[in-house]
């Protein structure tokens, strides 16, 4: 894919906020998202999709899924991380899936909002506990996804045009702008 087309496609993904329903997955469990380097199956894709939505859920403003942040996370992992990081991602993803299943009694993606939030909140608590080292790999996976989710969200068109004031051509520099206005 040439660069121009890639950017156009990405803009479409980000702009139109289309999330393909799971029925589009084929029978072989192949992931829908097109990746060049990272090899993931449909279950793994679903887990990452639901994890990004758990981190940034839909409220009265769009969540990660609606904004296509999950696709951005995959794009960044696919293009911008090394083979070693990708291997760690897959290993960590497996660990995360196992731990979630053990705790929730079902796959992470099949959990309710509440169950997923509880599980991820626990991950967050572990991440702050220096003595907790049981899940280093799944923690690394989680941090990778969270980092890219936040990056994707805070640089998305929605965020930069609706949540904060971003003008392509400000035309002036106001050194004492009221904070409330900037955060309209």
């Amino acid at each position, binding site marked *: 894919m040439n*660069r121009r087309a*890639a*950017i156009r496609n*990405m*803009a479409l993904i*980000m702009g139109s906020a289309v999330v393909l329903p799971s029925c589009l997955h084929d029978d072989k469990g192949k992931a829908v998202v097109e990746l060049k*380097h990272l090899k993931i199956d449909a279950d793994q894709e679903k887990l990452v999709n639901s994890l990004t939505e*758990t*981190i*940034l*859920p839909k*409220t009265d*403003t769009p*969540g990660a899924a609606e904004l296509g942040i999950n696709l951005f996370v995959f*794009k*960044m992992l696919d*293009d*911008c*991380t*090394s083979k070693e990081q990708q291997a760690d991602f897959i290993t960590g993803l497996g660990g995360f899936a196992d731990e979630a299943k053990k705790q929730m009694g079902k796959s992470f993606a099949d959990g309710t909002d509440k169950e997923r*939030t509880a599980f*991820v*909140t626990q991950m*967050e608590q572990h991440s702050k506990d220096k003595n907790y080292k049981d899940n280093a790999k799944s923690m690394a996976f989680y941090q990778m996804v*969270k980092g890219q989710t*936040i*990056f*994707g*969200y*805070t*640089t*998305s*068109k929605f*965020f*930069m*045009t609706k*949540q*904060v*004031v*971003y003008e*392509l*051509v*400000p*035309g*002036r*520099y*106001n*050194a*004492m*702008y*009221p*904070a*409330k*206005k*900037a*955060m309209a």
Partner: protein
Amino acid sequence: MSNNTYDAIVIGSGISGGWAAKELTEKGLKTIMLERGKNIEHIKDYVNANKGPWEFEHRGGRTQKMIEDYPVLKRDYPLNETNLDYWTNEKESPYTEIKRFDWFRGYHMGGRSLMWGRQSYRWHDTDFEANLKDGIGTDWPIRYKDLAPWYSHAEKFAGISGNRDGVPILPDGDFMPPMDMNIVEKDVQKRFKDFYKDARHFIIGRTANITVPHNNRTNCQYRNKCWLGCPFGAYFSTQSATLPAAMATGNLTVRPWSIVTKILYDKDTKKAKGVEVLDAETNKTYEFYAKIVFVNASALNSAWVLMNSATDVWEGGLGSSSGELGHNVMDHHLGVGAGGRIEGFEDKYTFGRRANGIYIPRYRNLNGEKRDYIRGFGYQGGGSREGWSRDIAELNIGGSFKDALSEPGSWNFGMGGFGETLPYHENRAYLDKTKKDKWGLPILAIDAECKDNERKMRIDMMNDAKEMLENAGVKDVNTYTSEPVLGRGIHEMGTARMGRDPKSSVLNEWNQVWDAKNVFVTDGAAMASAACQNPSLTYMALTARAADYAVKELKKGNI
């Protein structure tokens, strides 16, 4: 053959090459400007300049492929997807690092004038006298008074915004109105002044971004996208400023894809008669002839062209008789400074993106002070408010966390030092004949490093930064430093230095090669010392001054 004959040839189209072309054509010389890379047309070819951050596939980040393709560029901020096309293809144009040297190049029309940092400061007599006083390198053959009118000339045309601060070490210039400091910078400035009085100064950066309309260019729109090329022509570049002026004379021819392989030297007249060009697209060789040759290929590549020329007369190339050609590689050392948090001002934010910051001019080793190193450093920095709140300990995920991401975070203030490097003879670049580039040309080997003086200076650069920020009321100040690496400042200088004596310098007081008086070198190569100010304004002034002299000499029949 006559179509290949001009009055003047300019090698390179960056900041100094563009200036040479403008000055020479405005004085009536039929001039050809040779650019080794592709053409980039003003506005039309700034393909990413009008994109929102979300329109970049990786939001401006770097892919694994980019990291593999650009092993040098990846070492610092320049490698990113927004202006990748402006940086030199490292596979096609390799160089040998005897010691690590970060060489960030731009092989295209306009050169690094499209990506430069735009900070523009005059030098002071302290800088021009330093080598003589310290007994280091070669004495500058000029003083501030020789360059002052040319600084004015350069500032008036380029458009430099700045405040007339009256700082003795940093002469005021012919400025456009300054950009504003934000509220936090004003607060820091006030405390800074209360503490340091007139011993140290905290000023708004002087930058080549115009703040009022100028020569058909629109004033700065506060987009902070300068490195993409400005559709408003608001920052100085070859494309926005010198090229249109030169084209308007009707005297300029521009030839992209033209790698100058050597200057053609005539033993009988002891002058250059022209240059040999390798067409980068067709691999065909051409010759161009002229009465004057301006070498503006950037410090290291200007040395490369000279080293590759007249080798039948001087083994080391044109200008090598002094033994200094390619030597005395300098840069500014950086990557050391401090930053912290500012309390208060929660109800204030900034609107617009100012592509400028604050500047603290040199204060060390002045007025009789003697540190355990010589020369000095300045700082660039600024206050900014984080885009979103990061200190939300209890909120890690979920809807409230999402909302918190759009709340403004804390105000921070940071600054980093730019230190002078000394001219060391053993810091050098030379032709590595064992390796060739894509076009079969010998490549450069660079063997240069920071030494004791720079390392000692860096201790002050770090500790002073912390001390000044704390004295100015900044909280939780953290310092940083790094292994000093030459090249990283992207201010390469010194490889064909000016001087008073042909035995110890490559160029005379008018930037003429001692060994060929119709060859002028007016880019960073000409610098006899580095000072600590950003150097491009000085290249502009030196170029305009040399061009004026060259045309006068030509008219007198002296060259």
